[in-house]
């Protein structure tokens, strides 16, 4: 199906409200709509704010995780729509794969397109992949696949099995300790627009069964890339599995190990419980 081109990024707060109000009675197949935006200019002050929150260097090449915050509102529009078979509240981001096909800068206007695919059966529910493709000057430069789990939901008959694991090698050495403050979710929400209540405070998080607010997986993933600044290939695949939620505030440890021309990475709590496991591989 052809892309549906939007003039501006949708308002995420309104989308959450709509999705929450229309959460019940959803089902059926994935919609074939492909929300898109063309000629999106990178707002440099926004990029700078994002870089600061994620501890990324402010450079002219876009951080590999940044296009996600441009594409995410379109993916939200897709998921909030009544035609989307899974209820948005309670969806958990379990895996994220980003491919940088070529390094690209903040100067070129970007074309974004998103879609949903692979409604799949998971042992505790169903998963769906929200995909995004970003082009600059007509050539695809970046793509991503975000896998969300809906606990208790059921994939249709004949659906494939979910693929949410990212195998990583042994990572015996913690290389950095991060003290993640209580407001990390609110700070990232301000730059990403992802105002999912589970990230914003203890009370809203409790309503969804978390004892405290949890960090955005995409923030953790971005901060890992920040720690690898200067040590990344030009074109690469960054694949992460979000395991345990990172409760805020927390002290966590980053483990890295060179592997396959890139890196294996993990973010763990002080007792070794894994929040994130991932790989960076040249492509």
């Amino acid at each position, binding site marked *: 199906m052809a892309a549906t081109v939007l003039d501006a990024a949708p308002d995420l707060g309104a989308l959450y409200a709509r999705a929450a109000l229309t959460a019940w009675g959803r089902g059926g197949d994935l919609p074939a709509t492909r929300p898109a935006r063309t000629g999106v200019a990178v707002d*440099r*002050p926004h990029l*700078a*704010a994002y870089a*600061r929150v994620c501890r990324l*260097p*402010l*450079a*002219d090449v876009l951080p590999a995780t940044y296009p996600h915050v441009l594409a995410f509102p379109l993916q939200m529009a897709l998921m909030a729509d009544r035609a989307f078979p899974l209820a948005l509240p309670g969806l958990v981001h379990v895996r994220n794969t980003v491919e940088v096909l070529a390094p690209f800068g*903040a*100067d070129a206007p970007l074309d974004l397109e998103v879609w949903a695919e692979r409604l799949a059966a998971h042992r505790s529910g169903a998963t769906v992949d929200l995909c995004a493709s970003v082009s600059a000057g007509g050539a695809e430069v970046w793509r991503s696949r975000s896998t969300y789990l809906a606990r208790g939901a059921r994939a249709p008959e004949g659906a494939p099995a979910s693929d949410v694991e990212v195998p990583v090698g042994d990572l015996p050495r913690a290389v950095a300790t991060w003290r993640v403050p209580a407001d990390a979710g609110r700070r990232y929400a301000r730059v990403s627009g992802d105002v999912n209540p589970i990230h914003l405070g203890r009370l809203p998080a409790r309503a969804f069964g978390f004892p405290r607010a949890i960090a955005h997986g995409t923030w953790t993933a971005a901060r890992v890339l920040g720690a690898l*600044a*200067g*040590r990344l290939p030009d074109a690469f695949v960054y694949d992460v599995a979000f395991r345990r939620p990172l409760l805020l505030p927390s002290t966590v440890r980053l483990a890295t190990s060179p592997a396959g021309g890139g890196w294996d990475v993990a973010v763990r709590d002080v007792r070794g419980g894994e929040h994130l496991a991932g790989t960076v591989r040249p492509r």
Partner: protein
Amino acid sequence: MSPTQPRRAAVLGGNRIPFARSNSAYAQASNQDMLTATLDGLVARFGLQGRQVGEVVAGAVLKHARDFNLTRESVLGSRLSAATPAYDVQQACGTGLEATVLVANKIALGQIESGIAGGVDTTSDAPLAVGDDLRRALIALNNAKTLGQRLKALGRIRPGSLVPEIPRNAEPRTGLAMGEHQAITAREWGIGREEQDELTVRSHRNLAAAYERGFLDDLVTPYLGLTRDQNLRPDTTVEKLARLKPVFGTDDPAATMTAGNSTPLSDGASAVLLSSDEWAAEHGLPVLAHLVDAQTAAVDYVHGGEGLLMAPAYAVPVLLARNGLTLQDFDFYEIHEAFASTVLATLKAWEDPAFCKERLGLDAPLGPIDRSKLNVNGSSLAAGHPFAATGGRIVASLAKQLHEAGPGRRGLISVCAAGGQGVVAILES
């Protein structure tokens, strides 16, 4: 080589980001962001990805306390090998040139084969400090063991002490801004408004021409949307500059220094790659020039009656004498334009028999220079002056200019600095 025979360090090239005006294009960038981007640009230009160089030496004048290891942290975030050692230096506006001299000296002594010298400064992302009263109260609070001690510490905090201390471009011992100091010097040397504005126009035109002929193509890498120095006004004229009101020394009705003929506060970074001739040959990199010699000097601008920015006038004759040269033995002169009147006062001092005899102890004045050889590719009035980044800008640009002119050409660099200091150096192709 044996460690007892010094050799001349080679300048292979440089990289800088365009200089931005304060609180503009780089307002969100930290010193570390800019220095890292500049190093990465140099790495890309010279194929140094994952390579180790002998040492990286750089610094910033306005520096956050957390940036104590600014250069090493920038190296770690860059594409250089993480096994590259680095350290910070700070000599006010002389930082970049002093860093170059330090790297060159280690190369000369055979202690390293290659190195990068640089500097960075931001006047936008400047460090704010809490006032001294608040700082002492907070330290007392932190050390307090009893509730009574805590309350006593808290009681010392007054609303007025919550105002942060903003770094000022002023001399701590005199309380005068650098421009106010320079206004005194300009008056003493009778430097006129028109000659300052003429020098300013030449700086803008020369830098604009350098951009036009592509001279800066392999010296500058765009950053955050900026491709040229933001302060550059190619179409400025003496008539336009004449309309500006004086901003320094305005207690004198004949004040001459304006925002046009003074450098603006700016943000930016620069880096220079130096090496031994052997290292350059091994890596297939042409040598642009060699650093022949360098000299620093300082003057007593507080009680001694000398101008704050006059130290280079003292450093140059020492350097000339040691190298058996006269002031006229140069093909190019790079005199840092802190203010147009700084350059003019320095040149006038070298022509003045009384100054040369009484202050410099010379039998004869150094004499005039051929002005057509001065700052031929523009200088700080046009490019801007992110304090520590200026030395690297000048070294890379002069080395390239000397290389273009052919072998055996000589250039003199003179940089004045806060605290009454000066750093000068000779490059030769």
